């Protein structure tokens, strides 16, 4: 075997080693990316879970409904007014008990 024959063989070996190192690196990166992906997608799914809003508007709705109910009780009006935050009022009528004065809001 001459030197001309061994040099390309060594070059091929070095190229194969570089390719194997690249394969190992890609596999490692993908593994870590997958682990991070589980956390990221889990967090994103937690924040976007259907039926739950991440904004505090649900709490505002509850307080607005309470205030509407108390307002309608004190003024003895059947229709409740909308709050300043722009939330729509309940479609159901608000009635009060004559004995205890506890207001019960209709609808949801």
């Amino acid at each position, binding site marked *: 075997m001459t030197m001309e024959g061994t040099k390309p063989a060594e070059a091929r070996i070095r*190229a*194969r080693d570089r*390719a194997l190192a*690249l*394969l190992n690196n*890609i*596999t490692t990166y*993908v*593994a870590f990316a*997958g682990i991070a*992906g*589980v*956390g*990221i*997608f*889990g*967090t*994103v*799914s*937690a924040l*976007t*879970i*259907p039926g739950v809003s991440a904004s505090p508007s649900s709490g505002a709705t509850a307080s607005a409904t309470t205030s509407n109910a108390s307002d309608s009780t004190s003024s003895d009006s059947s229709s409740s007014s909308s709050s300043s935050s722009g939330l729509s009022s309940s479609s159901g009528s608000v009635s009060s008990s004559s004995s205890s004065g506890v207001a019960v809001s209709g609808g949801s």
Partner: protein
Amino acid sequence: MSDIVLWYTTRGAGAVSMILLSAVVILGVLSSLRFQSAGWPRFLTPALHRNLALMTLVFLGLHIVTAVVDPFTHLGWLTVVVPFSSYYRTFWLGLGTIAFELLAAIVVTSLLRGLIGQAAWRAIHWLTYASWPVAVLHSFGTGTDALSGWFMVLSIVCVGSVTMAIVYRILVPSTDPLAAARGEFRSGVSRKPDQ
């Protein structure tokens, strides 16, 4: 571990499994084209395909284990191996079980390729084309996030990428210069009687 953490881990691992499985399918389709360049030898594509397939099984295992041990659904271990045996979303979970078993069959036969022979391995490997769409259907039907914007984008990217790879594979012929000689050799081997 908190129940809610298990649930979120199930969903996160499911999304990662779908991405990895799509990547595995794409690499498998493209490896038949025998692509190579100066910095990307030909063996790298099937080797990466194999590594990612094994990694997919790991994340799929995480997806399955966290779903089964989650006390909210009470799925039970029978659901993992028997399709449509779950009371919870029976059909869509059954699709997931089928996809998992198809993928497990593909991986096991790939590891035993020397024992079962090339023809049997290739025939079973075609099951990938059934496993991937079944898994995607499972994610659409079972997934709590199926209608979420981020999951829709993820699904469109995965489905679009695999579709493009398959179309590319169909339209572009193999660049293997030894394809004809290899085909003749295979046909000659198959005709040769056992002695």
